[in-house]
């Protein structure tokens, strides 16, 4: 059984703008899929739907055996909290909290904050020694690694990464991709959304989205 399955999913804004059109998509446990496409292709809309931040207009979506079409907003929030780990292009760390506290925020909204666990997650991304630093005291690469540690802390079934290397230099890009490879090797299920062919190539499988339609990449 697939971890995530989309069947005939469409998203229409204001009854006119068709952002996604009859999408069929499937990802198994332990897969790493890159969703690629140019700006305005519907990538973000798809991310919002898979990330449980928006509901599709029609179709069927199942995540870890739960249908996302028949749930309330509160239930969608709960699914997002328990099943998804998110990595953002702009890191989105809370500026007044340290690296460790930023990781603990995700625990706080999920269950109970545990500093030892947060430290382990930071150690996992090679930042144990930067745990007490504020985001302003960290480099872009370090901030993204804190963001990955935060995404991992609640043991999500799916890691959703939106342009994870979009704001990083080449050295940090390599460092972050290395972590994604390690996570994949450990059995994590990952979806990366990117317009970069290089980043897309790192994934096990690539799908292209254009004008709201999805197709498998040929390379």
């Amino acid at each position, binding site marked *: 059984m697939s971890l995530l399955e989309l069947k005939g999913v469409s998203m229409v804004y204001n009854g006119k703008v068709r952002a996604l059109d009859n999408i069929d998509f499937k990802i198994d446990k332990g897969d790493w899929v890159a969703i690629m496409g140019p700006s305005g292709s519907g990538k973000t809309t798809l991310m919002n739907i898979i990330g449980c931040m928006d509901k599709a207009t029609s179709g069927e979506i199942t995540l870890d055996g739960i249908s996302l079409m028949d749930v309330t907003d509160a239930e969608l*929030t709960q699914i997002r909290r328990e099943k998804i780990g998110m990595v953002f292009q702009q890191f989105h760390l809370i500026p*007044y909290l340290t690296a460790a506290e930023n990781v603990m925020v995700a625990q706080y*909204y999920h269950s109970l*904050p545990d500093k030892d666990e947060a430290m382990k997650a930071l150690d996992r991304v090679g930042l144990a020694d930067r745990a007490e630093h504020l985001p302003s005291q960290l480099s872009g690469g370090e901030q993204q690694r804190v963001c990955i540690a935060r995404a991992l802390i609640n043991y999500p079934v799916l890691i959703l990464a939106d342009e994870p290397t979009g704001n990083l230099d080449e050295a940090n890009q390599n460092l972050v991709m290395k972590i994604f490879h390690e996570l994949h090797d450990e059995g994590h299920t990952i979806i990366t959304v990117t317009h970069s062919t290089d980043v897309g190539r790192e994934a096990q499988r690539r799908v292209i989205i254009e004008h709201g339609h999805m197709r498998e990449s040929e390379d």
Partner: protein
Amino acid sequence: MKFKFFLTMIFYSLLRRRMRMAVALLAVAVGATIISGMVTVYREVPQQLGREFRAYGANLLILPAGDSAAFDQSHIESVSKILANHELVGIAPFLYERLEINKQPILSGGTDFDELQKVSPYWQIDGEFPKSGKREILLGKDLSEKFSPIDPKSIIGKNVSVSAGEGSAMRNYKVVGIVSTGGREEEFAFLDLAELQSIVEKPNQIGLAQVSVVADQNSLTQIENEIRNSDSAIIPQSIQQIARSEFSVLGKLQALVLLVTLIVLLLTLICVTTTMMAVVTERRKEIGLKKALGAANQNIVSDFLGEGCLLGAFGGLLGSGLGYLFAQSVSLQVFNRGIDFSISIAILSIVLSIIVTGVASMIPVRIATSVDPAIVLRGE
């Protein structure tokens, strides 16, 4: 652990965003300062003005009961006992008798001049008050003009003959001063109570006692009842005009202070609401992130209300201290008298600041919960 982390989050959101939150803190602290100061003034005004009003004379008379024209001055002690729990300014005993001064019949008063000065500080004296045990006399301004029409003040230092009337012994008394009050006292002569009692041979007898006590209209009525029930030889009578005008002036002043306090409270509410709205607007991304991480609306509400309440507590704490200094300064400037720090007012202003900040956070918090978590993915 969860609550500890909640406190950590809201505490650091204030502490590590000092510049931004300083503006909000200032708004709350200024409001709390004025509220705490005004409440202190509101509470202190009756007492302070009550003391001021005592400068205008007695507010309670003690008179002999029934048809008696006088009573024994030992009854004053029972009055003093009843007033022990009140702020007593003074009790001035009086005996009025007609004496012959320089062979002219003059209405004269005997009193305790030390107490008189406390009860009627408005008496203006040219010269000095007669001293106890000395044959000294004080003449009213009109009376001095009668005795010395060309230069009334020249009578000071001269002797006048005093007797109880025809056939009684004549004694010489030295005029030590002239009294002006603007009232009927200017037609009288005044001498030490014991001297007058001795001249008219009425030892320990007094005709009335003037009492000045710091009390509002209700307390004064209560005192009156207590005296009436404890001693049947005397009749207490509050001077209603003074008590009523005190009550009226105080009521108006308190209403004014209350009105100003309410307006300040409203302005603080508006100011803090505006500041909190600005805080929420600039933190939309953070709210979106928290929601993307799985925060429910009630988590966002408690985060912002927690911050608001903490801000209110800090602002209230700061404001209650500054408010006391403000009230102290007002009291020193207006009443020439300091006031004590009130823990209850400090607690009230902290609690009020927390409530105001909490209420002020309601609208911004409502806006905060409507933030779409997807904004973190759109990079807005």
